[in-house]
C-alpha cells in the first residue's frame, strides 16, 4: 500500500470576495493524499469540494494555509510557475469533456505535448499510444462532434494521461454520461490507477462511482467531514 503523501494540505482556507459579502469556502482543510491512491471527493454543493479540487489542481491558490505538492509549496508559486507544474505533473478530466471543437481526437490529445515542446513525431507516437490506452486508436481522426459522449470523455482522459502525469484530477467525469458509459470510464480510471501508477483524484456526487475509489473523502461546510475506505483496491 502506498503511504508516501504526494499531496498535503494543512489549514487551507479560501475566502471569496471581501468585507461583509466575503464568503469562506474553505475553513481550514487538512488532507493528505498518498501517492498512487484513488480518491473520490464527495459532498453536497457548496461544501468546498470544487474549491479544494481547484487548489489541488494548482488552478487556484489558498487564502491561507499550506499546500505541499511533491514537497513544493504551491501556495508560494506564481501563475506561470503553477502552469508549469500542471504541465509537468497533472492531468485534467472535466465533466463537460472540454475538448477543442473542430479538432481531431489526435490533435486534442497532442495538445499538452505541444506545450511541452515535443516534436511532431513524438507527439504523434505518444498521442496514438494514449488513444490506444483508452481504446480509441481507430477514431484518431474524428472530431468531438463525430464522437459519442463516452468516447469524448475517453479522448479527454487520453489527453490527460499523454504526458504520463503523477496526478489525474477528474471533476465529475461521469456527470454527463449514462450509467453504462460511466462504469466504462470508471474502469478505465481504475486501470490507469492500478497499472500506470497514476494518483487519481475524482470529484463525484454519485456513490456508485465513488465506490470505485480506494479512499473516499467527504466535505461539508468547507471542512473535511470524514475519510473512509472505498471498495476499490
Amino acid at each position, binding site marked *: 500500500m502506498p503511504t508516501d503523501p504526494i499531496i498535503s494540505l494543512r489549514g487551507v482556507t479560501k475566502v471569496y470576495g471581501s468585507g461583509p459579502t466575503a464568503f469562506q469556502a474553505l475553513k481550514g482543510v487538512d488532507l493528505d493524499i498518498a501517492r498512487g491512491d484513488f480518491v473520490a471527493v464527495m459532498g453536497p454543493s457548496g461544501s468546498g469540494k470544487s474549491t479544494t479540487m*481547484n487548489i489541488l*489542481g494548482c*488552478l*487556484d491558490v489558498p487564502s491561507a494555509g499550506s499546500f505541499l505538492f511533491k514537497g513544493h509549496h504551491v501556495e508560494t508559486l506564481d*501563475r*506561470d510557475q503553477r*502552469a*508549469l*507544474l*500542471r*504541465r*509537468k505533473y*497533472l492531468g*485534467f478530466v*472535466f465533466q463537460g469533456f*472540454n*475538448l*477543442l471543437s*473542430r*479538432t481531431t481526437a489526435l*490533435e486534442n490529445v497532442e*495538445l*499538452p505535448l*505541444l*506545450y*511541452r*515542446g515535443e516534436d511532431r513525431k513524438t507527439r504523434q507516437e505518444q498521442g496514438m499510444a494514449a488513444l490506444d490506452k483508452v481504446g480509441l486508436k481507430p477514431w484518431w481522426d474524428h472530431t468531438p462532434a463525430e464522437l459519442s459522449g463516452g468516447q469524448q470523455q475517453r479522448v479527454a482522459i487520453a*489527453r490527460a494521461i499523454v504526458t504520463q502525469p503523477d496526478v489525474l484530477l477528474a471533476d465529475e467525469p461521469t456527470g454527463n454520461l449514462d450509467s453504462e458509459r460511466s462504469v466504462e470510464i470508471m474502469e478505465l480510471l481504475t486501470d490507469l490507477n492500478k497499472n500506470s501508477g497514476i494518483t487519481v483524484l475524482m470529484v463525484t456526487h454519485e456513490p456508485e462511482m465513488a465506490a470505485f475509489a480506494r479512499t473516499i473523502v467527504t466535505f461539508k461546510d468547507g471542512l473535511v467531514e470524514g475519510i473512509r475506505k472505498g471498495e476499490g483496491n
Partner: protein
Amino acid sequence: MLGTTITLAFRAIMRHKLRSFLTTLGIIIGVAAVVTMVTLGNGATAAVREQISSLGANILQLRPGQGFGRGGGGPRPPNFKPQDVTAIENQLTGVRAVAPQAQTSATAIYEGSNWSTTVNGTTAAFFEAQQWKLDSGRLFMPEEEEAGKAVCIIGNTVRQNLFRNIDPVGKQFRIKGVSCQVIGVLTTRGQGGFQDQDDTVVMPIKFVQRRFTGDRDISMILVAVDDAYETSAVQASLEQLMRERRKIKEGDQDNFNVFDTKQISDTLTGTTTILTQIVAAVAAISLLVGGIGIMNIMLVSVTERTREIGIRLAIGAVASEVLMQFLVEAIVLSCLGGLIGLFLALIASIAIAPLMQVPFIFDVRVNLIAFLFSAAIGVVFGYFPARRAAALNPIDALRHE
C-alpha cells in the same frame, strides 16, 4: 516553440475559413488599394516625366516677363530682337543651338478642309535644339530662312486634319490668307506637357514676322545646352547676358525669365508624386480600418474561445504562450491578408495601367512596405485581444458557457 505557435495559429485559422477571410478582408482591400494607387501613381509620374522629356532635354526657354504669377502690373516687357539671338550664339559658351520663336495662331485651309493651329516661326536650329525629326521631306534651306520664303513643315495632327491620306510634301495650302508649300512632315511627338506637340506649322521666322506679326519681335528663344556643360551654369551666364543687353540696373528685377525644362519636369513629377501620396494616404486609412476589423474579430474570438483558453491554461500553457498564440494568429491573418492584397493589387495594376495610358511599374519597395505594414497591423491590433486572452483566469474560463 514559435514554429508550434504558428502551427496552432494556422490550425485555428483553417478551422474557421470563412470567418478568417472576412476578418482579413479589410487588410486585403487596404493593401490592394494602397499598392494599386502607388503603382499607378508611379506609372503616371513616369509617364509625365516621359512626356516632358519629349519637350527636349537640357533646353532653356527664354521669355520676356517675370515668369508665372509675378509682375502683374506695369508696362509689358519688350520682346527679344534678332540681335539677342546672335549675341547668345556668339557670346555664350556651352550652347549647342539657339532658336528664336515667334508664334501666332492661324487657320490653315486645304481644299475643303480647314484646321486651327499654331504657327511657329523659327529657324532650322529649332529642330536641332528640340531634336525633332522629320518623317518625310526636308528642313528649311539657309536661303529660304534668309528670304523668309513661304515654306513650312507640318506636324502630324495638321497633316491628318488637312491632308488626310494624301502625301502633303510639295502641296500648297493657304494659311491666314497666304499660300504656303509643305516641305516636310514632323515625326509624331505626342502630348508634351499641356499641349499636342503635333498640332503645329513650322515656318521660317522671317516669313511669320513679315506676313503675320508685322514686326521683328521674337517671343521666345530656345537655348539648347551642350551635354558637356552644366545647365545651371549656362542659365546663369544667359541671365547675366540678357540683363546687360536689356540694360537692367543692379538690384532691379529681371524683365525676362529663363525656364529650365528639367525644372518643369521636376515640378510636374513632384505634383504627381504628391497626388500619389495623398491618394495612398486615403487608401491607408482603409488599412487602419482593416486593422480595427481584425481587433474586433479577435476580441469576439477570444470571448468565444474562452473555454478553449481555459483548457489550454489548465493543460499547462503559461500566459505568454496564450498571448503568443493569439498574437501570432492575428499576425498570420493580417500577413495572409497582406499577401492576398498584394496579389490583387498586381492584377488590378496590370489591368488598369493600360486604361490610364501609364506604364505598369512593379515597385518591390512599395510591395515590401505594404506587406510589413500589414504584419505590423497584426501586431498592434492583435496585442490587445491577445493580452485579454492571456489574462483569463483558468477556472472562470473553464466554466464559461
